[in-house]
């Protein structure tokens, strides 16, 4: 049954016990993304790791359906502390997976491969992507602030 394929136990588990939910105090960039059709929302912060400027620390708070919440929890597992290049590759991969353009790769998405079933429900794809789009937006902004700070200090 397609429905069970979308709502795999691993998804429901992330939904009921989300990883890393809660906003960090310090951050370089904060974004607030919403899905205007259903009202799901996420606030996501990206902090540049003070010890390793290549690494991006993620924190978030959100409300929404099981898919959007589980997806954010999975995103936290996968992208927290990763570089922009790694994160961007993961975003590209999940987008492609949800357009059924690639086979899911567990090395890139971790539990995120369980979101594959969402591709059968086009109206839910936005739910699954909400946090990933927010991450990309925030990451770019965070790196932008760093560059401008560097520029200013030059």
């Amino acid at each position, binding site marked *: *049954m397609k*429905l069970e394929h*979308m*709502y795999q136990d691993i998804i429901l588990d992330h939904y009921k016990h989300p990883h890393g939910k809660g906003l960090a105090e310090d951050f370089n960039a904060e974004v607030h993304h919403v899905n205007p059709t259903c*009202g799901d929302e996420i606030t996501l912060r990206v902090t540049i790791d003070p010890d390793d400027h290549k690494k991006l620390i993620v924190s978030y708070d959100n409300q929404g*359906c*099981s*898919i959007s919440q589980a997806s954010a929890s999975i995103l936290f597992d996968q992208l927290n502390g990763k570089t922009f290049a790694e994160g961007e590759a993961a975003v590209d991969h999940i987008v492609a997976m949800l357009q059924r353009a690639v086979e899911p790769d567990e090395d890139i998405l971790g539990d995120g491969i369980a979101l594959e079933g969402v591709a059968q429900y086009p109206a*839910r794809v936005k739910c699954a992507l909400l946090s990933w789009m927010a991450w990309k937006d925030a990451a770019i902004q965070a790196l932008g602030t760093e560059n401008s700070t560097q520029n200013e200090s030059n």
Partner: protein
Amino acid sequence: MTTFDVAAIRADFPILGRTVRDGRRLVYLDSGATSQKPFQVLDAERDFYEKHNAAVHRGAHQIAEEATDAYEAARANIAHFVGAQANDIVFTKNATEAINLVSYTFLNATLKSLRGKDLPKGAQRFVLAEGDEIVVTEMEHHANLVPWQELADKTGAVLRWIGLTDDGRLDYDSAKLIIGSRTKVVAFTHQSNLLGTVNHVAQLVELAKSVNAVTVLDACQSVPHMAVDVVDLGVDFMAWSGHKMLGPLGIGCLWGRAELLNAMPPFITGGSMIETVSMEKTTFAAPPARFEAGVPQAAQVVGLSAAVDYLNAIGMGNVAAHERHLTQLAITELAAIPGVRIIGPTDTSNRGSAVSFVVDGVHPHDVGQILDEQGIAVRVGHHCAWPVCRRYSVPATTRATFYIYNDDSEVHALASAVRDAQKFFGV
């Protein structure tokens, strides 16, 4: 309800014969978003294209004459349906455009007046000054909220609103405080598309009249579901959409009091709404033409007229009674499920057939998905009435809406599927 034969009605709606999600019967409980269309409406539209298609009001040849006659006869029929005169009905693409037509009237009259440009006699009624007030309610669809926010933003007028009580009704006590000497327009819905609440039009009209404010009624959820008579209602403007009352997509209606329509500068301008045109100066036609720029949607108007015939044949009293019965049943069955909470009035007096609810522990989007898997089409989300969700502290709701082609078995299916959703998500 001896006169109400749902099975016969269903046979007129081709889409209800289809299945969804691997062979499930379609249980369509989303008529509040858009209704389905009987073949009579589809035939009327097609017949227009196959026999009489021409640009209305722009030709003198035979099919142009026929197209124009069909368009104007449809206008008269649709007007009659709401107790109006034909020439007081303006066709738009949807109710949203109809409401914007009124909100932009205020903007355009204000700007032209500031610059001393020509305005029709009586247009002063629409001129706003800094600090003038626009009143809406907290239960408006975005279509009757955002245009007024925008108008306020652009003119310096102030948007105020009438709040809601905990049981999903308008707070009439506060309405008396909010509608005052600076109020220039009171825009409100006849029936909330999220709560189902039917508002007391006469009471708001009386308050608005006492301060000489223009009243704008959003009748999107009333005209399709009950007998509506604009004269009885006493409002100044009324907007609704054809697609929610068995009619085609792409056609909306604005009714306006004749003396107000006459006093309005145009909104969208172009062909067929002019009197004379030179490069230097244009004068405008009388209503309704003044507000119908461009080649009109004649086929859609003809289709809507067929929808009106269809509803008239059933009788709007019977439509309302049938819906009241289904609504009562739905509220009873849903309220009986532990963990389900209805957002909106739970008694059926002054209440339409939109039944919104939340299920503890299951997000509406997920509820909708489980229902959909069983072939039950409901709407989930904020239903373009986000402030109502905020008011009742829910992120969104699941909403079932009923119409003439729904029956008791579909209500049972809804309630049973909600229980399944609870099971699925282990709550």
